């Protein structure tokens, strides 16, 4: 730039004809008050171009000078020029008006706050922000950090446009579901790739469907669960294809790059953070369940109706009536006619109220601490930290405890050679309730179903078993949730070490060699234990039942508890080598080339053992000798799984920048992975991208647009892809052993999947256009992006004729496109020495459309074609008829269920073909929020700090679990008080086979038994569109004035008080704890947290 200006000075001839004046002055650095040498002082060519009307004048010529050794300048300009510009690298350009006085200007340049050396870390490269052509977003963890949150994923909620994060379960350590720019897959994982200091992390996939019980209840070890947010400096989210394609196939869902903290040059700095937080007990009344009085009246109502015969012997009211032999009397003559003992017993019941919320949920006091030590000099920098996070969940007996240790060291061995080593170690223990027996062990579920009058313990302190929790008509296995919690354990201990070794060799200023080896070792130990006196064990025992002839039975399960262990050992290494070549020629051409290789290998061994007859004192088990156990997988005592994958990739990027204005970028990567059974033509997948950016702000014509202080346009296009390794053109077999006849066990090979030579690779083509705009000295900074992603040939399971030998095959069956926009606005509203107010607002919208999908002949629900990936289909009801049966719409007319389902005596609706069935449904909305985003404000007043973070989701359609089933209401269960409205408004009446009304029997038998597609759950009365804004955090801080601290040699001391998730505004979500988990009857409530903490630095 500077030399360019020199050149331009020697084009004076153009200006000779005009009257001239001389301007002179001095340029100084605002921070140091020292003169700036070599600053450019010039007049925009645009100005000259406008003023000179001489033929042949080249537009774009400039006039200017540079400052001398004393920072002084002098410049002859045409008389009608009335302002000039002063710029210097790293400083804000100043525009100076020429007034009466032409000389003696003192121009103070201010350092560019953020623009100076903003470097974007992609994990492979460091790219200067100005050369960045891709769509990305970066946040500093210090600015988004919240107390009482163990993982960084949840802190990102509402912070970054286009990154939609939903906490789906309030259990300690539960993952958040992250979607970056929608979903590009229908079956596979939609998790983004997490990268820590250049190393992609491995971990369990976050489950897609959180309405599923097992997804909520199973403890898993997730990729970032072991990282202490205090150790993280910043997070960069790479969103478009040009940013992510360098990561290869795994980056299809976006990449989140974590940059950890490192030591800074200077004296040793010690930092200590301590926070106590209180997680509040969830408000159980939100579930809107019936209380004892309501429930007893409800049961009386059921008993009074002769048409409702389902499970007539269940529920305490029925038991009392039966015990006093008054059931029929009550039904025929009413409550007043039954014996006074029975009346008393029933009335008593109304007064027994067990608050299941109090029994199962709690308030908990928790702690989190971290300590760090860092520093450095020219040769070496270091960072060491230790952390403890200890949280007890609001659901009793759940919790998470994590210890972390981080160590980072960087050395300069010679001027050219530097090396770095990092270690991240952690132990993470998660406790939960036992799962697997059935849904009753899930406290959220049980608390919705347990009767309010059911006591937990009797007068003698013995556990009361739920008499209504019955396996079969003749079997009750004695369930008491508190006893179960006492006698069972479920724990996951994850130990993880991640280490990174990094060597850089700088041949010269242009050529840099880097090699980086990352290791990740994970040891996960899961233990699930049910003692002898647990429902879990009692239920398991039933699996060992066998007949001893003549109607007698026995069990082969040995007496004792059941202990199950899963030990998983995972190892991965990632070895990456790159060569970077950066050069600049003729002052206006910049070229950055990177070439590299990456080798990655991971191994996972899982050993699952089951011990029966476990004695917790002797810690021994009893072997099962019964032959029946041999054929039953439930009694398999040992199982080992081993898995290994290798990847080899070659990649390169090239970036060319012209005149700091135009940047072109391209990347290419060949991804290879282990070849077993993979079609050779897919051995290496080519993934590539092209992108460009235009720094409009640097164009001359922008100089007189005062209001704009930055403007950049970006565009990118790229191809990503994936190949499904589970299908192969060959028949792949798996070894098992079988014994066909006695005395001989043989190895057998079972075909894994159907051979398929026709499968193409999944391909996602993305394009992105974006704009970055700074206004008013970047007081307002706006970034906007529009993107379009099309994923073709998505692989899915398709059912095939059974005659082929298979039920399903993988096939290229769908095309999905996502389009959307993102907008982020950051503003510095007020900046005075005492008071500062900054805001950031972001909003994003993503619309997915399934363009193509093969219809599955056996499906009950309509094809997604033309709808969103998460489209919700429901059956439109038209209110109720006079008997309370649902009515439906067809051709604009209200019709009965009999006509709608085409029910007929004898055929029970079975004549509905699957296609007819699909046609019953209508599209009612998108399960993805239409708009998501956040609005965050920060205020600083003298020593005080206030931060308010909010996030919102607007217009999301959710289908809830029905609060009751019209033909299957169990008197022994509690229900949402919605059931009291059954038969009125939109809620269908309770019916039995003999309930009066036209064809009620047909409707009853349809919903009760023949409705294989479970259409009752899909009635539109259970569907709701919700929108909400959550105040995720309000944080108040106070920093002690320095003058008090200096004496104590303390460099800073802050106190914080924070409230998390205190308020939600929006559509009512009655019946559920949170709008996020609306519709899910299994998820634990998202905790409200109040925390108090301090941060001390020396």
């Amino acid at each position, binding site marked *: 730039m500077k030399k360019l200006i020199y050149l331009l000075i020697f084009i004076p001839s153009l200006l000779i004809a005009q009257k001239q004046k001389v301007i002179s002055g001095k340029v100084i650095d605002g921070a140091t008050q020292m003169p700036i040498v070599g600053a450019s002082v010039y007049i925009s060519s645009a100005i000259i171009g406008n003023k000179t009307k001489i033929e042949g004048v080249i537009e774009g010529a400039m006039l200017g000078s540079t400052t001398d050794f004393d920072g002084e300048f002098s410049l002859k300009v045409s008389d009608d020029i009335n302002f000039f510009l002063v710029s210097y690298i790293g400083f804000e350009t100043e525009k100076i008006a020429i007034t009466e006085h032409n000389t003696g200007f003192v121009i103070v340049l201010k350092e560019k706050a953020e623009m100076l050396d903003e470097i974007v870390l992609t994990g492979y490269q460091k790219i200067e922000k100005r050369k960045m052509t891709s769509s990305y977003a970066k946040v500093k963890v210090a600015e988004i950090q919240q107390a009482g949150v163990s993982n960084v994923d949840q802190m990102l909620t509402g912070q970054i446009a286009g990154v939609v994060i939903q906490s789906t379960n309030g259990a300690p350590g539960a993952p958040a579901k992250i979607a970056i720019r929608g979903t590009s897959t229908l079956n596979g994982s939609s998790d983004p790739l997490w990268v820590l200091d250049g190393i992609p992390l491995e971990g369990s996939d976050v489950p897609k469907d959180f309405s599923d019980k097992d997804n909520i209840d199973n403890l898993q070890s997730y990729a970032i669960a072991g990282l202490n947010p205090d150790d993280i400096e910043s997070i960069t989210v790479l969103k478009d294809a040009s940013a992510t394609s360098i990561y290869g196939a795994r980056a299809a869902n976006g990449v989140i790059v974590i940059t950890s903290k490192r030591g800074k040059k200077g004296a040793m700095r010690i930092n200590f953070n301590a926070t106590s937080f209180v997680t509040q007990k969830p408000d159980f009344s939100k579930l809107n369940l019936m209380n004892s009085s309501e429930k007893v009246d409800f049961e009386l109502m059921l008993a009074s109706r002769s048409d409702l015969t389902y499970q007539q012997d269940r529920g305490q009211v029925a038991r009392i009536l039966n015990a006093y032999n008054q059931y029929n009397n009550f039904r025929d003559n009413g409550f007043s006619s039954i014996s006074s003992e029975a009346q008393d017993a029933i009335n008593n019941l109304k007064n027994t109220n067990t608050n299941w919320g109090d029994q199962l949920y709690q308030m908990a006091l928790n702690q989190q601490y971290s300590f760090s030590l860092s520093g450095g000099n020219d040769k070496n920098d270091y960072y060491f930290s230790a952390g403890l996070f200890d949280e007890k969940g609001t659901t009793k007996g759940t919790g998470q405890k994590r210890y972390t240790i981080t160590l980072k060291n960087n050395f300069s061995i010679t001027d050219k050679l530097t090396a770095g080593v990092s270690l991240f170690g952690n132990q993470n223990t998660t406790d939960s309730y036992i799962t697997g027996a059935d849904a009753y062990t899930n406290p959220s579920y049980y608390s919705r179903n347990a009767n309010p009058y059911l006591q937990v313990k009797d007068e003698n302190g013995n556990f009361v078993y739920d008499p209504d929790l019955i396996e079969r008509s003749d079997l009750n296995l004695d369930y008491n949730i508190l006893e179960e919690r006492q006698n069972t354990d479920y724990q996951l201990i994850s130990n993880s070490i991640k280490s990174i070794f990094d060597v850089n060799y700088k*041949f010269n200023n242009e*050529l840099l*060699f880097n090699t980086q080896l990352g290791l990740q070792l994970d040891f996960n130990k899961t233990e699930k234990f049910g003692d002898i006196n647990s429902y879990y064990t009692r239920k398991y025992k039933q699996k060992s039942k066998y*007949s001893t*002839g*003549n109607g007698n039975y026995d069990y082969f399960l040995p007496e004792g508890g059941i202990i199950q262990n899963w030990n998983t050992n995972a190892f991965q290494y990632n070895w990456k080598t790159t*060569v970077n070549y950066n050069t600049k020629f003729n002052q206006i051409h910049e070229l950055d080339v990177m*070439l590299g*290789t990456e*080798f990655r290998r991971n191994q996972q061994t899982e050993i699952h053992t089951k011990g029966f007859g476990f004695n917790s004192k002797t810690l021994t088990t009893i072997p099962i000798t019964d032959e029946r156990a041999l054929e039953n997988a439930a009694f398999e005592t040992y199982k080992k799984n*081993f*898995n*290994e*994958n290798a990847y*080899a990739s*070659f990649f390169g990027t090239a970036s060319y920048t012209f005149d700091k204005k135009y940047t072109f970028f391209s990347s290419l990567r060949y991804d*290879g992975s*282990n*070849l*077993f*059974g993979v079609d050779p033509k897919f051995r290496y997948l080519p993934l590539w991208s092209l992108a460009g950016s235009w720094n409009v702000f640097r164009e001359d014509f922008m100089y007189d647009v005062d209001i704009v202080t930055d403007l950049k346009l970006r565009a990118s296009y790229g191809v990503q892809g994936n190949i499904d390794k589970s299908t*192969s053109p060959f*028949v*792949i*077999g*798996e*070894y*098992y052993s*079988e*014994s*066909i*006849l*006695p*005395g*001989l066990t*043989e*190895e*057998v*090979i*079972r*075909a894994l999947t*159907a*051979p398929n030579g*026709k499968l193409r690779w999944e391909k996602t083509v993305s394009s992105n256009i974006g704009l970055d705009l700074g206004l008013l000295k970047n007081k307002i900074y706006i970034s906007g992006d529009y993107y379009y992603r099309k994923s073709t040939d998505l692989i899915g399971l398709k*059912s*095939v*004729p*059974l*005659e*082929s*030998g*298979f*039920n399903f*095959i993988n096939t290229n069956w769908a095309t999905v496109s996502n389009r959307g926009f993102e907008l982020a606005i950051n503003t510095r509203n007020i900046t005075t020495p005492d008071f500062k107010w900054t805001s950031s607002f972001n909003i994003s919208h993503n619309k997915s459309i399934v363009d193509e999908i093969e219809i599955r*002949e*056996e499906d009950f629900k309509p094809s997604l074609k033309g709808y969103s990936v998460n489209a919700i289909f429901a059956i439109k009801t038209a209110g109720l008829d006079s008997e309370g049966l649902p009515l439906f719409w067809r051709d604009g007319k209200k019709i009965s269920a009999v006509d709608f389902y085409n029910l007929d005596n004898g055929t*029970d609706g*079975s004549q509905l073909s699957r296609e007819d069935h699909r046609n019953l449904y209508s599209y009612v909305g998108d399960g993805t929020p239409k708009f998501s985003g956040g609005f965050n404000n920060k205020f600083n007043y003298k020593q005080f700090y206030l931060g308010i973070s909010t996030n919102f989701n607007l217009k999301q359609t959710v289908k809830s679990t029905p609060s009751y089933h019209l033909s299957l209401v169990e008197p022994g269960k509690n229900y949402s008080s919605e059931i009291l409205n059954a038969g009125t408004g939109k809620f269908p009446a309770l019916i039995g086979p003999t309930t009066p009304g036209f064809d009620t029997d047909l409707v009853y038998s349809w919903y009760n*038994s023949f409705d*294989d597609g479970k259409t009752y759950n899909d009635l539109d009365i259970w569907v709701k569109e919700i929108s909400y804004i959550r105040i995720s955090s309000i944080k108040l801080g106070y920093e002690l004035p320095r003058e008090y601290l200096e004496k104590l040699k303390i460099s800073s001391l802050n106190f914080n008080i924070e409230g998390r998730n205190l308020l939600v505004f929006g559509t009512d979500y009655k019946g559920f704890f949170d709008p996020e988990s609306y519709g899910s009857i299994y998820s634990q409530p998202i905790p409200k947290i109040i925390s108090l903490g301090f941060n001390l630095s020396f």
Partner: protein
Amino acid sequence: MKNIKYIYLILILNFIACDDYLDIEPVGQVIPKTVEEYRSFLTSAYASPIKHKVLTTYRADEINLDKNAEGVSYYKDIFIWNDLNPSPLTSSFPYAIMYRNIFYTNHVIENSKTIIGNQTAINQLVGEAYALRALHYFQLVNMYGKPYNKTTASTDLGVPITTKYDSDKEYPLQTIEKVYAQILSDIENAEGLLTIEQQALGYNYRFSKIAVKAFKSRVYLYQQEWQKSIDVANEALTINSVIQNLNVASSIMPSEYNSVESILALETIADFDLVNHTTISTGLINSYNQVEDLRFPVYFSKNTNGTFNSNKGSDTKYKSSYRTSELYLTIAESLAELNKTEMAKQQLLEFAKYRYTPAGWELYKTKVNLLDTNNLVTEILEERRREFAIEGHRWYDLKRTTQPKLTKVFNGTLYTLEKNDARYVIPFPNDAIINNPNL
């Protein structure tokens, strides 16, 4: 710039080493290539438990089912021939699993030229694959098709035929004629390839020369090709003609895999529910001379309440497909059908010697010798009923012969399967129909 050359060299070396790096054989997975691997591959088809014999026993007249029996809902509607609106819990007749096994056999046959290894072993393996495929089509067509009838076989619809895997293929129903032609062509291919005369104990679930002949003789019997059936049965008997003599005490039943008369011990004949939760029907009990018939105490045990249970059970040792007894009875039946009454009686009595006490045999002889041709055929079928009780023959024998009227009482209600009732043909399972609109 020298440095760049080094780096370049490293990159190139990386590229070369790469294919080895990526060549991971997953533990426990294999793409079959050798004859040993293909053998293991075919063994998994042999090993998949096909319970058509168990389920047809519920449909025939050999057992009683009580409404309170455990698991009754799985079998109730099969028992009372309720095909129209059965309970969703009803056990499905095997279909998918049979075509899965056919896929295995097809894969072995299709790749017979490229299997690596000893040619004799390959021939034996491929021969078995042909025979096993034929066996599956035979079972399928007899479950889901009408019985073979020479005059209508070319129009009666049987089951789809597939001999090659193709994901886009249609699977239309083929005529019974075509299915039988496929079966016989596979059997002939098997005969040409099989090298083992008789399998050793423990391996006798695998086809051998004698097994494929016994199978072929049954196919001809079902086709009512009487003379061909006799000829093939006789060929088989030249390899093994021993019948277990029940006059000599033994702990082994004739139908067990290790009895002297076992030819192929592949199919499961009974399972836990069948043995423990049903009782033997009065009709079957009454068909025996409980005193003189040596089979009665061997086959059945009496409960305290006077009912009987089958002794043939779910243990793998009870697996049975063909045994020499069947060859004798097939020959007898075919001779009788060919009006060679005397020869037929001789054959039947020769067999019966091993099944009755000497006194009982004398009685039986007198009875048989008095029979005319028609009654002799009936008696031979009765003898089959007694001999193969709870071995999965009954339903198919009823179906291929007279399709008589059957009656059953369940939960106090009388159910009837009329003579020649359409329900002698089992409907295709629901999931098969949903996935293949051609059914």
